[in-house]
Structure formats: structure tokens, C-alpha cells
């Protein structure tokens, strides 16, 4: 697997790179890099409106990304955005503005990424909407409080898999209960799609947001899957070319399909690159990798605990292989920098989840997140790297 990823043969500070910052962004296989290269070298053109050959190829390349998304996730509507963050903001504007009213409640959780908090706080400032946060206890959502919060909620926004703890929330349960209570459901699947297969239709959620760059695809592109019933209720968000049917100085009419929400020249090369990533991933057995990686993560956790670290990740059966920890005295940034000096890339800080940090009672953690190209050797190098840090700081 590693040989598919050019960056993994790179040296950092004189050592072979061990990349364990996968929850932030994943690396790209050759085929993805080549697809974009090829697009720019052979087919680059603007899409949709022109009749010339390049424009046809560019349109096919871009729209193929959409068809692959619909196919892979079993969705009838896939809006292409710039990433999870824009996808969620799109829901807040295109659906929220039109369908939420003063006094309505939106349920969030303390485990959300800032991208699934701030858009709702901003909406709550434009309208008087009540935001109800489901607390986290022992690294999991407090489902009793969730149940109790449902009454009067019009929308439930929940992260499928936490980028800090790796915890995979009981979203099936959450969706069922929310639907029963008459609430729409938005799933932040940024960390989910890289780790498990998802059937959007079957899940029954209304919105599912994710980014290409966290699943071996390019930066600058992501998607929002939408149920038909929610799609019908969405008003345009950004205005411009490609999202209109007619424009006159007295008013405009809009496209009826996903293009309605894709104003302006779209992310064409990015769509081509993501399509290549989706095709590449269709040959990857995520489940097999998942069990392999969760075992590695559990081993790493055990070792870290025995070395005196506090580990916040529970690493349950279905959780992602994300190990968040702190050392009782070494500052996370010193820790990360000393690992980087050994070629090991991990992340430190609040991971864009400050409310969760507050709940955990820390200002930040060190996070090692494993992905399909990581193996036991990486874990060993990482643990040896930790030992060297502990020795140096002793």
C-alpha cells in the first residue's frame, strides 16, 4: 500500500516520514495526483455550457465525481462543495434560513467540530433559535440528555465519528429517534467516510457532509448528500453562473438539480481528482483495514498508558483509530516538535473542538491518527519516538 503514496517515501529531518496526522488530512495515491495532472495537461476547460471537445471532457470528468458519489453512498442528491465546512454552512443557509423559525431548537453535541457549531451559532444570531448541546460523559454522548432534548427540535446535527476521540456515535439510533420526533438530521461525516462504508438512503439522514481531502482526495472539494424531501425545501445559497436557468434585471429563475447550489465555475480538476480517489477506494476493503487499525491503536494506547500518559480515546469496536493523549508535564507542542524531529507527524492542540476540550478539562491533546497506509512498523517507530522524548525530558 505505501508504495501507492509518493509522499510516504519522503524523509523528514533525516528520518523516513511516519505520517500520523490523518484525521487532519490524508495523503494522496499516485492515481489521484496523476488524474489531476492529466486533466490540466489534456482536458482543461470550463464545464457545462460549451460545445467544444475539451469542455465535454471536463464536464464528463467533473460530473463523474458526482455519479461516483451517488453510487458509492447510495444517494439521489450530491451537491459538490469546497468541503465539510461549506457543506454545513450550505445547510444552515439554504435549508436553515428557509425552514427554521424563531423559537425552533437545533440539537448539537459537545463533541462537534467547530465547523458544526459556528454556522449554527451564527444562524442563531440571525434568528432566535435555541441551541441545545448534548454533553459528553466518559468520551461518549449522553444519550439520556439527547432523548430529553428532542422535544421541539427541528434539526439534529451530530458528528458521526469524532476527530478528537475517534468515537463512533450511535447515529442509527440518533437518526431513528430524531425522525420519530419530526426533526431533520445532519451528519458530519468528515471522519466517517474515510473509515466505513455508508449507505445514505438506508441511514435515513437528511444531510451528510464530508471532505475529499480526508479520504485520499484533493483539497478544495467536498460534498453534501441530501434526501429528496430536504432537497425540495432548500433555497439557493450563493448566486452566480451555472446555478441559474434565466437571469433578467427583473429577477432570476434557478436550476432544479444540484447545480442550483453550485454557483460559479466549479472545482473541476478537484472533481476529477476526487473521482480518481473514489475509484481507487472502491478497491479498498475498509472493514478489513478498520479492524487492523483499531488493533494497532489499542496497542498504542496500552503502551502510552504504561508510559504514564493519559489517553482520552476509548477505542471501541467501531471507533476510528485516533489516539488522543496528554503527558502529565510535557507540553503537547514540545512533544509534537520532538516527534517531528524524528520524522513523526502528529497533531496537537484543540483540534477545532474547544467545547470537547473544555469537557475533557484540557487545553489540548496530542493526537496520533492512523489510516489505511499505516502499519505496525509505524506504531513501533512512533512508540520508540515517544521513548526518546520521555528520556530527553526526564
Amino acid at each position: 500500500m505505501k508504495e501507492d503514496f509518493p509522499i510516504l517515501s519522503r524523509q523528514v529531518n533525516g528520518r523516513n516520514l511516519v505520517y500520523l496526522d490523518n484525521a487532519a488530512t490524508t495523503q494522496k495515491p499516485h492515481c489521484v495526483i496523476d488524474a489531476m495532472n492529466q486533466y490540466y495537461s489534456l482536458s482543461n476547460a470550463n464545464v457545462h455550457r460549451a460545445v467544444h471537445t475539451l469542455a465535454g471532457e471536463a464536464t464528463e470528468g467533473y460530473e463523474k465525481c458526482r455519479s461516483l458519489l451517488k453510487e458509492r453512498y447510495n444517494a439521489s442528491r450530491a451537491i459538490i462543495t469546497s468541503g465539510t465546512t461549506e457543506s454545513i454552512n450550505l445547510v444552515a443557509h439554504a435549508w436553515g434560513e428557509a425552514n427554521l423559525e424563531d423559537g425552533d431548537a437545533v440539537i448539537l453535541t459537545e463533541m462537534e467540530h467547530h465547523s458544526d457549531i459556528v454556522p449554527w451559532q451564527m444562524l442563531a444570531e440571525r434568528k432566535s433559535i435555541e441551541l441545545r448541546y448534548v454533553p459528553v460523559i466518559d468520551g461518549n454522548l449522553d444519550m439520556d440528555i439527547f432523548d430529553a432534548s428532542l422535544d421541539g427540535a427541528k434539526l439534529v446535527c451530530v458528528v458521526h465519528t469524532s476527530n478528537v476521540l475517534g468515537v463512533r456515535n450511535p447515529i442509527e439510533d440518533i437518526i431513528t429517534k430524531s425522525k420519530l420526533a419530526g426533526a431533520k438530521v445532519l451528519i458530519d461525516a468528515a471522519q466517517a467516510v474515510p473509515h466505513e462504508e455508508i449507505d445514505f438512503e438506508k441511514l435515513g439522514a437528511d444531510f451528510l457532509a464530508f471532505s475529499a481531502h480526508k479520504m485520499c482526495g484533493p483539497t478544495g472539494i467536498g460534498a453534501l448528500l441530501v434526501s429528496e424531501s430536504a432537497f425540495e425545501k432548500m433555497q439557493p445559497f450563493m448566486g452566480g453562473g451555472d446555478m441559474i436557468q434565466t437571469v433578467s434585471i427583473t429577477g432570476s429563475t434557478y436550476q432544479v438539480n444540484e447545480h442550483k447550489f453550485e454557483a460559479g465555475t466549479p472545482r473541476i480538476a478537484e472533481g476529477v481528482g476526487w473521482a480518481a480517489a473514489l475509484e481507487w477506494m472502491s478497491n479498498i476493503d475498509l472493514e478489513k483495514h478498520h479492524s487492523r487499525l483499531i488493533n494497532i491503536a489499542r496497542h498504542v494506547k496500552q503502551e502510552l498508558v504504561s508510559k504514564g500518559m493519559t489517553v482520552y480515546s476509548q477505542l471501541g469496536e467501531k471507533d476510528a483509530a485516533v489516539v488522543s493523549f496528554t503527558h502529565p508535564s510535557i507540553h503537547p507542542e514540545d512533544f509534537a516538535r520532538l516527534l517531528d524531529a524524528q520524522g513523526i507527524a502528529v497533531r496537537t492542540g484543540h483540534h477545532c473542538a474547544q467545547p470537547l476540550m473544555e469537557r475533557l478539562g484540557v487545553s489540548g491533546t496530542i493526537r496520533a491518527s492512523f489510516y489505511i497506509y499505516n502499519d505496525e512498523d509505524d506504531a513501533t517507530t512512533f512508540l520508540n519516538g515517544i521513548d526518546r522524548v520521555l528520556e530527553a525530558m526526564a
Partner: protein
Amino acid sequence: MKWPDALQEIIDEFKEIEDQFEKLEILMDFSTEVDELPTSDWNDETLVKGCQSVAHVKIDINDGKVWLKSAADAKMVQGLQGILTIAINGNGVNEVLALTPEFAEEAGILNSLTPSRSNGFRTMFDMIQLMVRRSQ
């Protein structure tokens, strides 16, 4: 896929041509095969939506036989309509419903059109079959 003879002949004719310009010239020649739908019969039901140029189609069924009337402002679309006219006119409902739009790809016509245009063609094709199904 096996196509009706008249259609197969057209496909073969296109396949023989290499130069894309000539292919388009032949395509436009088929515009003379169109059984013209007069503008007075144009309405929202006959309009092909999603087509970049203006196009209209209408179906009549007589004694179980299907007849296509059509019109378009672009010559290439007229050409496509002409081919559809040959493939459809005077054939039975079931034969028409058995057609698929892939023949245009096989002939190398759709290849020469952009997706948005080929979508226009697919839309037109689907519309015709829907009209046939509804008129039964």
C-alpha cells in the same frame, strides 16, 4: 445490441466516416428527414427541456403505429431528430419502446457531442418514449 435495419444502416454509414467535420455534415443532412412540427403546435408539453437550443417533439399513434413530429433551431439537433424519425415512424409501439439512445453513441454521434448536449438528446429520447407509453 441489435438495432432495427434502418437504424443499423445509419449507424454503419456514420461508422465509415473518419473526419469529424464530415460526420457532422452527414448528421445535418438527416435534418431533411424530419416530419416538421409546425410552430403553432409548440407548447410546454412538446418543449425539450435541458436542451441548449430550442427543440420540440410530438408523438401520434395511429393503428398502433408511432409517428414523430419534431422541430429544432439548430441543424444538428434537427439531424438527430431526422434519425429518430427514420427509427420511429411507422413502427409499432413495442418496437419504439425497445429502442435505446445508445445507438447514437455507437454511431459516434454522441461522442462528438458534449455531455450537456448528449443529455439534451437523452432527454429528447426519453420524452418521446414517455409520450408513447402515455398514449397507449
